[in-house]
């Protein structure tokens, strides 16, 4: 990769980690989603009374998701069908925090103009900004995954004396869908933030990205949308294509004049 683009990415990373307020807000959502919520779900599954209605509901599920006890079946469902969706939320949150501050932050501190006087083209500056946010969100989401896996497996082992086996959903979500969705979010937010005048304004724009994911989660919980692996895979590939297209068109019709207003 271009030397100059790498330099901008490194600088943006430092800018985030050096800003304590921004860094904390980057960590708070992943901690809630990977430590508290899974911990709570599994505890509830463990202490839940044996209920006949629930038993009947579970019997509607495909055989592949049945485990030896009801408690393990429910825990497996939570682990393999609900928690993966969190890994769509985490990168979107992380990248929106970073992407929102990338252009507007530089605009507010008057450093953008200096960057525009560099030999980087507008397209390269957009790419650097997008890649920085993307890499940051992927780092956050991989670390979150490791933390979550440790917390969940430990709790399941202590309460139920066994370990959970991650389903094929996990690699598809972690390696395909989550990066693609996060890339889409980043490109859209970076483009939006290039126009925005304040950090708040650009973060408000990011909220819209969360809505489809929230729907997906609600869908998962109510069982309306027990996405099959193949649908998931197809959806992921579609998102990857969209992400690549958006990345290529990132700078779009932006001009220096629009950025400096």
């Amino acid at each position, binding site marked *: 990769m271009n*030397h100059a683009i790498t330099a*901008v990415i490194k600088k943006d990373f*430092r800018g985030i980690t050096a800003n304590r307020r921004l860094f904390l807000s980057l960590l708070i959502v992943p901690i809630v989603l990977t430590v508290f919520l899974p911990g709570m779900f599994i505890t509830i599954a463990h202490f839940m009374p044996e209920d006949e209605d629930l038993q009947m509901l579970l019997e509607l599920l495909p055989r592949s998701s049945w485990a030896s006890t009801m408690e393990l079946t429910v825990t497996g469902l939570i682990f393999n069908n609900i928690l993966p969706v969190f890994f769509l939320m985490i990168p979107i949150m992380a990248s929106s925090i970073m992407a929102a501050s990338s252009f507007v932050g530089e605009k507010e*501190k*008057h*450093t953008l*103009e*200096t960057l525009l006087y560099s*030999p980087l*083209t507008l397209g390269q500056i957009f790419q650097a900004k997008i890649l920085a946010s993307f890499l940051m969100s992927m780092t956050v989401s991989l670390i979150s995954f490791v933390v979550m896996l440790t917390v969940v497996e430990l709790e399941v082992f202590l309460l139920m004396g066994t370990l959970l086996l991650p389903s094929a959903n996990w690699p598809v979500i972690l390696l395909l869908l989550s990066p693609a969705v996060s890339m889409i979010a980043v490109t859209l937010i970076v483009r939006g933030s290039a126009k925005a005048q304040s950090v708040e304004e650009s973060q408000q724009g990011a909220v819209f990205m969360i809505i489809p994911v929230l729907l997906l989660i609600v869908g998962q919980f109510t069982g309306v949308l027990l996405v099959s692996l193949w649908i998931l895979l197809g959806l992921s590939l579609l998102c990857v294509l969209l992400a690549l297209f958006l990345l290529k068109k990132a700078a779009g019709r932006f001009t220096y004049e629009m950025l400096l207003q």
Partner: protein
Amino acid sequence: MQTIILQNLSKTYSGGRQAVRQISLALDPGEVYGFLGPNGAGKTTTVKLLNGTLTPSGGSCRVYGIDPSAEPAKAHAHTGVVTEHAQMYDNLTGIENLLFYASVFGLSPSDSRTRAAALLRQLDLKDAADKKLSAYSTGMRQRLSLARALIHRPEVLFLDEPTSGLDPESAQNVNQMIRDLAETEGITVFLCTHQLRYAQEVCTRYGLIDEGRLLASGTLHELQKAIMPELPLIVRAEHMPHRLPFQQAGGENIYQASIRTEDEIPSLVRQIIEGGGDVYSVEVKHPSLEEIYFTLTRDRKRTENAEKTPGIQQAREEGKERTI
């Protein structure tokens, strides 16, 4: 090759404000061009046009042979820019900032280090190199900006108010540095400023701009000839002959006459002596850049007012005709 060329360059902002109108000029390597004018004259707009961050609405410009509005990134590799709005990162130290811009401009890490260290030393920022920028004063920031603009050894340097926040000593140091760069390395410097005295110290040529128009351009001597063609000649003499074109000026025995060239001096002095006068000193007062600037802007105001009045009278007369 001429490094900066403007041909009828014009810019009208989207609001309809004509900030730059039909400016043409060309600069050679090693020239330090002082671009002078009051607030809102169009100086910063011109710099932005020359860097491609604005697109001209008429005419064209070339910097180092490149059209900056078509290939801005390519042009930027040859230019260094200091403007008041081009800031650096507060969360990085002075040297980290310089190293960052060095890598953006494609310098190798070892080259960046030596270059950054040399510039920090030259600009008297060595002690502040490892301080965060948030702890820098305005003047330190301005000097660091100059270092940043020079990090990649540009052939063309654009300076928009580079010394406005500097103390006299630093300003002099910076001016010396600018002059050296132009003389020894042949860098072309395009300098916008209000500080006419500093401008007179560094610039080899000047352009006076107001309301987007280039009113005059040339060396101090050329400007003086065009704008203040009559030079005051001050003579201290006793027994000044009355028929000569001298007038008493200020103190006793001080006389003043207006001349167009210095060639007139010998014959005037001879006439004083032949008429019985005793000459103690003869001095031609060359106007400073400041005086030339004020004469020009004052003349302009006067002609503008003169232009306005007939218009009003005409309108009145038309009004009269209608009522009759």
